[in-house]
């Protein structure tokens, strides 16, 4: 058991944890990994699952090879479009790929390297997605302040949380 693993809100189906500066998502799908690979790398399929259900994703660029770029535009009613983009760093079909995952925020593009590995056992495939967030303290600090949401001007509460991390 890895002692640096901290659960970050796992659900019934998806395991979510931080491990040092990485944020890790794991989920097992009832599908062979060739199909999972297609779902991640076919520009016709990506829009069917990328982002929230009320959003529409348009793949404007997808060049699946090292150094190739990708760019998805997510549109939804009542908000500005969000642009996701980056570059493929390593491509190893059908066992996984590494890319940079960025999105536009009001402070400019933010993001970092992210890897996706697909492991098939008995016709089922476990997807493990790992995003590099910097450090475990950064994740703690950020999630702790996220919990005080809206009440951040209440310095007393923020003080308690900062003291705990």
């Amino acid at each position, binding site marked *: 058991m890895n002692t640096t693993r901290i659960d*970050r*809100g796992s*659900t019934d*189906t*998806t395991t*979510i944890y931080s491990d040092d500066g990485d*944020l890790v*998502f794991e*989920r097992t*799908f*009832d*599908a062979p990994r060739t*199909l*999972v690979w*297609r*779902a991640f790398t076919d520009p016709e*399929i990506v829009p*069917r*699952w*990328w*982002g*929230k*259900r009320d959003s529409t994703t348009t793949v404007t660029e997808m060049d699946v090879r090292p150094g190739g770029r990708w760019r998805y535009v997510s549109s939804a009613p009542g908000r500005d479009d969000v642009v996701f983009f980056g570059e493929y760093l390593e491509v190893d079909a059908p066992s996984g790929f590494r890319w940079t995952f960025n*999105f536009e*925020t009001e*402070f*400019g*593009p*933010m*993001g*970092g390297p992210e890897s996706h590995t697909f492991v098939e056992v008995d016709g089922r495939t476990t*997807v493990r*997605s790992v*995003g*590099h*967030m*910097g*450090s475990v*303290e*950064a*994740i703690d*600090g*950020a*999630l*702790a*302040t*996220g919990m005080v*949401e809206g009440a*951040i*001007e209440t*310095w*007393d509460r*923020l*003080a308690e949380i*900062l*003291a705990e*991390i």
Partner: protein
Amino acid sequence: MHESDPLSVTFAALADPTRRAILARLATGEASVTDLAEPFAMTQPAISKHLRVLERAGLIERGRQAQYRPRRLRAEPLRTAADWIEMYRQHWEVSLGRLDDVLWDLQADEREGAER
């Protein structure tokens, strides 16, 4: 993440226990450098160095008085960092759920194709 983007600077600033303790102290109200140095077994220059990192990250700012320039907390970068991680977490949680349905549909299509 690149050192140049504001979020990385926030994360790097948060990654040190002394700096987090300074932020916790400032969360209770503004304080002078002398006040801030007091609980730590550290020289004032060492504390000042941490304060510069926090200041560069936009997590604290200086008061206006010329002589006594108390430091105070700025919450905005903390909130941005929190928002970013939360958005990221939600993105994958939601997308992987939808992917499950899509993989199901794709396999159903394949089975139908084989039967035809």
